[in-house]
């Protein structure tokens, strides 16, 4: 297992290298000049050129790439051209809100999706099942930004029971922290709930007709225990894959949701940096998101071995 983990971690190096090349190219091939944006419209040509030299933008792109990637390898993501702060520090400062948002939506997703799926499978021969399929499909299909606006209109404007903007760190009161994040987290979770519940339901329905389920019933075990023990744990294995991609999807979803609910997280940082052509920050944030993405996937692969004793990585 340890050997496998190390091997997988090493295989992440080429992946991250390719990601960094793509990120660098996208950022640098997009039109727009950071020096011009920093100095403003009525700046002189000389001062722009002077700033470009200062930022290293006058050098060939290959040289710029290698000096950047060299620094990245030593853990230095560079400095923001906008605020001159180190990029690593900026990312750390914006991590809290995004992480909070992801944790709450993930917990919310599992808390709703798992009982729903179990209940639907328990009532599998009733009209509940087609209704469930329609709702879960609706949940997966709704665009996040539209649903976010709908929620803001409903629970922020028409019935103002939830705040629609702002973020309060958990250190300043857990209740207030949760209260401010509930609506955005719910919007993020809506899509994932449909996906996870549907996946779990499919897995459980497959498991319900397996021979081992019949053995459990023949032992005289209660239907509820048969479902929650024998059926559920077998269905959990395919569902874990979906939960893994869900976590990654949440990270992407935060870009839109943080902007809509003005939450100062990684997503909003990314959008702001793009407006400012703040190359080092954009590169740093995307690299960071990619790293989280691949690590979550690695974690899911390792989790398989825990959930399914037949899977061994040695």
């Amino acid at each position: 297992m340890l050997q496998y983990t190390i091997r997988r971690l090493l295989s992440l190096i080429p992946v991250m290298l390719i990601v960094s090349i793509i990120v660098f190219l996208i950022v640098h091939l997009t039109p727009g000049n950071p020096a011009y944006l920093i100095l403003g419209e009525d700046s002189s040509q000389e001062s722009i050129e002077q700033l470009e030299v200062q930022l290293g933008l006058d050098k060939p792109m290959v040289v710029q790439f290698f000096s950047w990637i060299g620094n990245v390898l030593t853990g230095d993501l560079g400095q923001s051209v906008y605020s001159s702060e180190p990029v690593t520090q900026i990312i750390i400062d914006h991590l809290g809100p995004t992480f909070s948002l992801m944790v709450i939506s993930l917990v919310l997703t599992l808390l709703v999706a798992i009982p729903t799926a179990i209940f639907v499978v328990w009532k599998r021969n009733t009209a509940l099942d087609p209704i469930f399929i329609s709702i879960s499909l609706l949940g997966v299909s709704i665009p996040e930004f539209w649903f976010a606006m709908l929620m803001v209109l409903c629970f922020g404007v028409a019935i103002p029971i939830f705040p629609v903007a702002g973020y309060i760190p958990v250190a300043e009161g857990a209740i207030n922290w949760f209260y401010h994040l509930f609506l955005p987290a719910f919007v993020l979770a809506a899509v994932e709930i449909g996906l996870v519940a549907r996946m779990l339901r499919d897995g459980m329905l497959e498991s319900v007709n397996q021979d081992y389920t019949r053995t459990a019933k023949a032992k005289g075990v209660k239907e509820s225990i048969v479902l929650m023990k024998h059926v559920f744990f077998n269905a959990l294995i395919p569902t874990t894959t979906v939960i893994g991609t869900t976590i990654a999807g949440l990270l992407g979803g935060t870009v839109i949701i943080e902007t809509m609910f003005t939450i100062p997280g990684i997503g909003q940082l990314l959008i702001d940096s793009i407006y400012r052509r703040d190359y080092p920050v954009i590169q740093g944030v995307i690299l960071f998101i990619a790293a989280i993405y691949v690590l979550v996937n690695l974690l899911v692969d390792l989790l398989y071995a825990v959930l399914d004793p037949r899977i061994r990585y040695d």
Partner: protein
Amino acid sequence: MLEVKNLKVHLDTASGIVKAVDGVSFHVKAGETVGIVGESGSGKSVLAHSLMQLNPVPPATYPQGEIIFENRNLLDLKEKELRKIRGNEIAMIFQDPMSSLNPVFKIGNQLMEAIRTHQSMSRQNAEEKALELLKDVGIPDPKSRLNDYPHQFSGGMRQRVLIAIALACQPKLLIADEPTTALDVTIQAQILELMKDIQKKYGTAIIIITHDLGVVAQLADRVLVMYSGRIVEEGITGDIFYHTSMPYTWSLLRSLPRLDSDIHQRLKSIQGQPPNLVDPPKGCNFSPRCPFVTEQCLEVDPSLVDRGNGHRAACILSESEYEERKHEIQDIEREGVEQ
């Protein structure tokens, strides 16, 4: 102990109602071994599962009949009362040991679940009981095996574990649904031997469902022959094998390879296919494939007729007519071989 009266089990499928079990009556006495034989699709597995109502509902329905077990009709019981019988008084072992154990739980967990579902017992006592059961079914080094997962066992060993699970509460009746079909021949013999030993030790009555006449000959006191959802012949094992009085059983026995037969002789298979159970043929269900068939067979649906000594057969031919017809067929065949 168990008495099944005119049991019908229907399967509601897209192509119509399949009469999988169509009016079956039989009984099992305490400590007895009853074999149920029949070809694939004869309804024997559905019958076995319906005794514990383990057929998935839907499609299965039980429109008629009674299953009387110790003075209670199991078809009238509520799910909760039925659960107290399942695994406790009646236990079952299944056809495919490879898939009948849950792959994600340890053997010990699955065995102790069977024990603790019906007996209030501490974990420690249950573990001791589990160890004892594994020892009883002949699993070497049971202590360390408790912590193994099903995939770490061979097919034969898994069937032993499943037998141990079935024995957990010392059931009065053990239903074995093709327990040896998925195993290779040496393992089959071991499992059958084990079942005999268990019966001696625990005094359990056994219903063994199989398509293997050899298994029945070894194990059963009495035999029921099933065809298209019905019992067509019933009797003590010796009578069924040596005094067959029903053309289907006769054809079935003849289709077996024999050690004393000429190696160049072809096996005598039964012509045709089992009938469609959605829309069975008029008259006797076996008539389209029966070498004994008479005109009357296409009209009259025969019921089980007592032939003495508990021997019953569903055929309109009387004993003498049957013997006469049998000799005729054998004569014709012999002439065919000589020519």
